[in-house]
């Protein structure tokens, strides 16, 4: 088991009267190489959960362990080290550094770890060979998201956290990006946790977790996993 979450609680508010549960008693586990899709409407706590898994946000109580490493009350330094070695992020709005080239954006991440993957190989597998010396504003949104995935995978992390990665893309680009996730999941045995509100995408996952108002309403293993090319929405 790669990731284990037990009774995770996250609240907002400063007094008992206005305490708001963003996540309540959340428990689930993820095996290495699993592709997990977290579904739910806006405001259900998906992104909060992802931020906790990425040590961007803290939680009140419960247990979150990745490879046996607890994320509870991590110091700033340890959280940085954790993000550096264990996590790759993919954001909805890509968040590429505008004045770094495609290659440099990926190298930025690779340069932070010793056992990074080969940058040029990643660029080739992402179909970005012709664009590697271009800057983000010179390529399309789909291509930018591919760079963002490349940046996440380059440091060979334990887990890739993707927050609505197709939220800003058109249908065709979304499919291209999702097929890349599919490919890296298979090729690198990458563990991917993807947050989305698009329920059609649950079919490409090994595990589907549905959240509503901060509570897990279902946690199902998908035995009929489909390739993204077969999924329509």
């Amino acid at each position, binding site marked *: 088991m790669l990731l284990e979450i037990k009774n995770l609680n996250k609240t907002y508010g400063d007094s008992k009267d206005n305490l708001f549960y963003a996540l309540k008693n959340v428990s689930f586990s993820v095996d290495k190489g699993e592709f997990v899709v977290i579904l739910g409407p806006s405001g259900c706590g998906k*992104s909060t959960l992802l*931020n906790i898994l*990425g040590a*961007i*946000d803290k939680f009140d109580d419960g247990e979150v362990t990745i490879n046996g490493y607890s994320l509870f009350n991590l110091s700033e*330094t340890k959280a*940085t*080290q*954790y*993000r*550096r*070695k264990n*996590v790759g*992020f993919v*954001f909805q*709005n890509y*968040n590429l*550094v*505008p*004045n*770094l*080239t495609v*290659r*440099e954006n990926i*190298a*930025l*991440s*690779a*340069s*932070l770890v010793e056992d990074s993957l080969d940058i040029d190989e990643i660029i080739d597998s992402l179909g970005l060979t012709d664009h590697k*010396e271009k*800057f983000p504003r010179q390529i399309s949104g789909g291509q930018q998201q591919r760079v963002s995935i490349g*940046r996440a995978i380059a*440091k060979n992390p334990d887990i890739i956290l993707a927050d609505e990665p197709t939220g800003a893309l058109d249908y065709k680009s979304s499919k291209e990006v999702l097929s890349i996730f599919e490919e890296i999941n298979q090729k690198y045995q990458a563990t991917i946790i993807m947050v989305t509100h698009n329920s059609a995408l649950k079919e490409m996952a090994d595990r589907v977790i549905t959240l509503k108002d901060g509570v897990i309403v279902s946690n199902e293993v998908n035995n009929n996993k489909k390739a993204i090319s077969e999924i329509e929405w």
Partner: protein
Amino acid sequence: MVGIFQKTILKRAPREYKKNYFKFFILHVFLIVLLSLVSGYLTGTQAVDQSYYSMLTSQNAEDGEFSTFFKFGDENIKTIEDKFDLNIEDNSYYNVKFVNKNNENNYVNIYTNRNEINKISLVSGRMPNAVDEILLEDSYSDYNKYEIGQTISINDYQFNIVGRGYFADFPSIRKSSTDIAFKFEEFLLGYVNIESFSKFPVNDLTFSYAYKFNKQLSDEEKSAISVEMKSTINDLTKKDMNFVIKFLPANENRNISTPKNYASQYTPIILAFVYVMIAIIAFVFSIDTTSRIIEESKVIGTLRATGITRTQLTSFYLLLPLFVILISSIVGNLLGYFVFAPIFANIFTELFSFKLISIPFYWDVFILTTIVPSVILFAISLLIVALFIQKPTSAFLKGEIEHVSQQGTKVLKNKKRFFARLRERIFMKNFANYVFLFIGVILGSILFTTGVSLKTCVDNQINTVVNEAFCEDMYLLKLPVECNEPNVEKFGMYSFDYEQSGYKRTAISMYGIVDNSKYINIDFSNYEEDTIFISSGFQEKYNVGVNSELTFFDTSSRTNITYKVAGIYKYYSSPCLFAPIKVTSNLTYKNRIEPYEESIERILKFYGIEYDLKGIILNGYFSDHVLDCFKDEHIESIITPLTLKTDTQMMVKTYNTISIMVMAAGTIVYVLMMFLLTRHLMDKNTKNIALFKILGMTDKEILKSFNIPSFIVLVLSLIIAMPISRIFTNMYITKIAYKTMLQFIQYVFPLWIYPLCIGIGLASFIIVLLVSKAKIKKVSLIELYKSE
């Protein structure tokens, strides 16, 4: 639409202000400090100038004075009054040595009369009207703690102090009107009534007369009349076997003329400095504003598309800079007027000796320190903002208005290590920021290094005058008296006026030295007659050398004399000349003795001195020990290394203040520019910093990525600033100070200034590190989720 937009602006601007309160607070503080000091200086010094001019009128200050050895008779006075349409008042005084209450040997000039000319301005108490009552000059009394009701002992007489006041012919106080340094600490002026005056021994009386023209005349007219008047007085005294010791029109009398515009003399340079600072602040503001425009380009595009005009948008982006400068300048002015103006006025009135009447509110100062800075800031901001806002609406909508981004998107060689590339990218992306850091640091470094080097010159000059002193005790004599003690050496002295194009007319001394002098090592035997040596100080100040032909004006004969420079004598203490003693002796005899020989012989007889006036005329002695040959009345002054040091310290006091002010200004510029630009750099890159943090970069790595370029820029600026500062200091001293100031300061620039300034510059890099460290720590990772 327009009304709604203006209202929206008025709502948004305070929010922006509140959001960046710390940055604006620092800017306010800097601008308020800068403008309050300047408005305080301008107001205070203008008030001092105004009080000085007002004093000249209210106390009916003299147009000139003259002294004669024996009394200048009433008939002579009437002749002069009638001929030149003026009023003469007897201003004779006793110059008496006395021991003050601190047991120090001081001198006092005791006056009476002063009913018409050079009236006394009472500071406290009353005028003396009984025997044994005295009024003392206020600055001396203040310094030496003499109060009304106390007594002072002069010439064994006890006087009751009944008043303190100012003397119109001594708005600045020197013992001798030719001295450069002020001496109110050890030279007292006293006023007694006529009965008390008559108690002093007649032998100590100096016959002095103040004159005032009956009509208002221009300075040129007064100067023209003075020449003729002096000649007439000389003729009259010669006829009476009398002798003119001194003839001094007010504009040549340093006691009277020094305070004229003295306090406000640095106004142009201070205003220039302030406006340069405001221009830099305007550019810093503009970087900030243009960053906001780039950040909000899509919103601006949408607003343009909905009909908001470029002028409306420009006015919005100019609102905050204008608000900051206006508020700061108004507060600065109030603070300047109420707090700093009295402080600056006091600095100068403490130096001088006249009453500060009042500190009025000067509208010109208000305009110079409020309107002008605001206009400068507005004009620069308008220019830069307008250039950005002029871009097409489509460019705004696409978010493609960042011109500088072209520099940031240059393809770099792949061979570089990634972090080096990242730093290079950061540098290119924030190029404008680094350019201003560069300019700011250069300006700060120039100011700082200039301040340090000026201070070095001042300190060096003080050491130089001590080290180069001709001897331990140099006796300057009023009368030629032979001294046969061992190891003493006579010298002659003659004074000329020297003027070179662009330079202030200055009195230059010529030392006449004996053959094989032990004290001044020049051998004139190999040179032609009428050749002289000049001091290296003269050489440096006037940029002349060996074989130059120099023409001097002899004020006694009113003729020009030309000498050829045979050599340079290493003497940086002052610009002066050296010649064989027979040269000064001949000049003295020909121009100052021969025409009045009978008068002078009468004077020598009066003192019981026998001297061959046709032989070598001496003016003093070099000695390494105290001499017993002379009586007090023979001695003009005794110059020792200590008196030289004190005098030089007094002379270079202004330089010292300037150097400290320039150093402080440089440090402020340094700190401010580093703070503002580092903070701006960090603000502008908040999202990138958040991303770097999420990717797992440590704060230290991020700090290095942003600050290694800052560090390189800083070092580069410092290295470039050093030679510029050197040139600047050299120019200031050799091109401005040499020409405008009476005193001489040798220009020196020791090599240790380089490492010192670079070291201090680098030490201030801590500010950059602290600001960026705090900001990096503060950046929330959630920043990345904020919409573009």
